[in-house]
């Protein structure tokens, strides 16, 4: 379990993260949501020691994260930041192999190659493994980076907006992979995510941030509620239960003159049809 106590960060006068405390449950997917500028990425960067914090502490299984040797920490926590643009001549397989660096220091052994093969298969990258990274599409590249984190084989995996610039199909694919990682490999995954419906459908716990503070933190059922979300995002949000998932409808209700009743009726018909099929 990771416990975060009162971490804070200011840039000049502005407090970007204001005494945030939270705990991350093992073997679950925890989503961080909140408006732009709420401090989500900053919190994640501080927890994973990419960014120095002004105050507070981060404990992993009770031990302070900053007193641990970098290399040992790299076997416990991995972090993948958003917008990974590389101008390197590097193939998918070479990139994925970097994930073994904390273990092999660049000299790959048989065991390392086995883990790399496994991850490439897991992320369905076999056909791409000899392609250069800059020749891939956004979804393929994101899969390659996630394969690198899988190879790193850490208990905790932090992902900063892994769905950025991906279409629905690839977003769903990535989220399914994350669920599989939790289910099959018992990983603990923390993601920063903008689409609240992805958060609602695929995560176990949700932490909502606003203005550098925790607005609410709890299971997804506790957080995905009309009154709570409306306060965080300062807009009207309706929530419908579709196929057992709480789906937020936040589009301007003037579009196409859809009333709340229409929406409810439509959802019911869809559900009926689904049941019949």
């Amino acid at each position: 379990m990771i416990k975060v106590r009162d971490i804070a960060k200011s840039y000049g006068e502005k407090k970007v993260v204001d005494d945030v405390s939270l705990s991350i449950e093992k073997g679950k997917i925890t989503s961080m949501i909140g408006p732009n500028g709420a401090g989500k990425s900053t919190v994640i960067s501080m927890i994973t020691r990419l960014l120095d914090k002004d105050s507070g502490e981060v404990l992993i299984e009770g031990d302070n994260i900053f007193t641990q040797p970098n290399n040992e920490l790299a076997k416990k926590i991995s972090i993948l930041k958003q917008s990974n643009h590389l101008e390197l001549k590097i193939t998918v397989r070479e990139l994925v192999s970097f994930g073994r660096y904390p273990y092999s220091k660049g000299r790959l052994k048989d065991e390392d190659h086995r883990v790399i093969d496994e991850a490439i298969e897991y992320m369905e990258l076999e056909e791409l493994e000899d392609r250069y990274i800059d020749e891939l599409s956004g979804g393929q590249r994101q899969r390659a980076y996630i394969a690198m984190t899988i190879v790193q084989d850490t208990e905790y995996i932090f992902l900063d907006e892994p769905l950025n610039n991906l279409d629905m199909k690839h977003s769903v694919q990535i989220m399914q992979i994350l669920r599989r990682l939790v289910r099959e490999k018992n990983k603990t995954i923390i993601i920063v995510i903008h689409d609240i419906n992805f958060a609602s459908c695929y995560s176990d716990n949700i932490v909502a941030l606003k203005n550098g503070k925790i607005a609410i933190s709890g299971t997804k059922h506790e957080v995905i509620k009309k009154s709570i979300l409306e306060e965080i995002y300062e807009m009207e949000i309706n929530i419908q239960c579709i196929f057992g998932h709480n789906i937020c409808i936040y589009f301007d209700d003037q579009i196409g003159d859809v009333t709340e009743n229409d929406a409810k009726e439509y959802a019911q018909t869809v559900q009926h049809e689904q049941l019949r099929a």
Partner: protein
Amino acid sequence: MLKMTNKKLILILALGAVASIVLYMLYDLNPAIFFYQIPSRAKRVAAIVIVGVAIAVSTVIFQTIVKNRILTPSIMGLDSVYVFIQTSMIFFGGASSAILLNSKANYFVSMVLLVIFTLFVFKFLFKFTKNNVFLLLLIGIILGTLFGNLATFMQMMISPEDFLILQNNLFGSFSAVDESLLWITGIIVLVSILFVLKDFNSLDVMSLGRDHAMNLGVNYDRKVSQLLVIIAVLVSAATALVGPMMFLGLLVVNIAHEVFSTYRHVYLIIGSAMISIITLVFGQMIIQFMFDGGVELSIIINLVGGLYFIYLMLRRSKI
């Protein structure tokens, strides 16, 4: 398969470097002055190897840190500062000043001042510009122009005789290198490279960028500070020994990138060192045998390197 080709390429380049050195040593030997020619050429070859390796290694690492292939320490104003230091010596001390005439004193004063300047640029400007490459390049060019103009200003004020003496020190040249300085520079370069040697793999990780490197357990910020000190020492030692070779690093490292098309520093560093030696030996042959020593080597290198620099800029702007 890819690895095999890269290893073969290294081998070919190494053979090329050895062959060019042998060619230079044996070309047009005159039996009458044989015992003068061989040691004098050997000394130049030693200087070429030391400087070539120092510039190549430092430029590869520098470009990995700043993630840019057209920035080099020399382009960031280091060469102008060298010219400024040399000019100041003659301006304030006169042509007969002890520092200017004593090549050892000159070497050490130049080297220390260059290291100080480089470290200042690295430590403060990198933080100040938040590693923004364009801002860095701009400030580097402004600093270069500033020191260049200050030097020109002082050169206008000194007597023509003094200026002629000064001019000898302003162009990079392997023709008149002090033997004991050769040893000192050689040792400095060797020690610096031994430090880097054990870091080839972490350099590879660092080329992924700060976030990835930290994630993989590399203490990025500390590594960068250490490496910047090594770069400053390498470049300053090389420049103090033979004078400015502005575009040498840019030329050889970019050729190495095109030859190897890999991110791995083992290949990039050894490869650019070999290319660097080959370039300098051939340059030396051209000025020594074709122009009879009438032209300085740095002029040839800068002509070729400068053209290549323009080509790189044009190609970049197209993409």
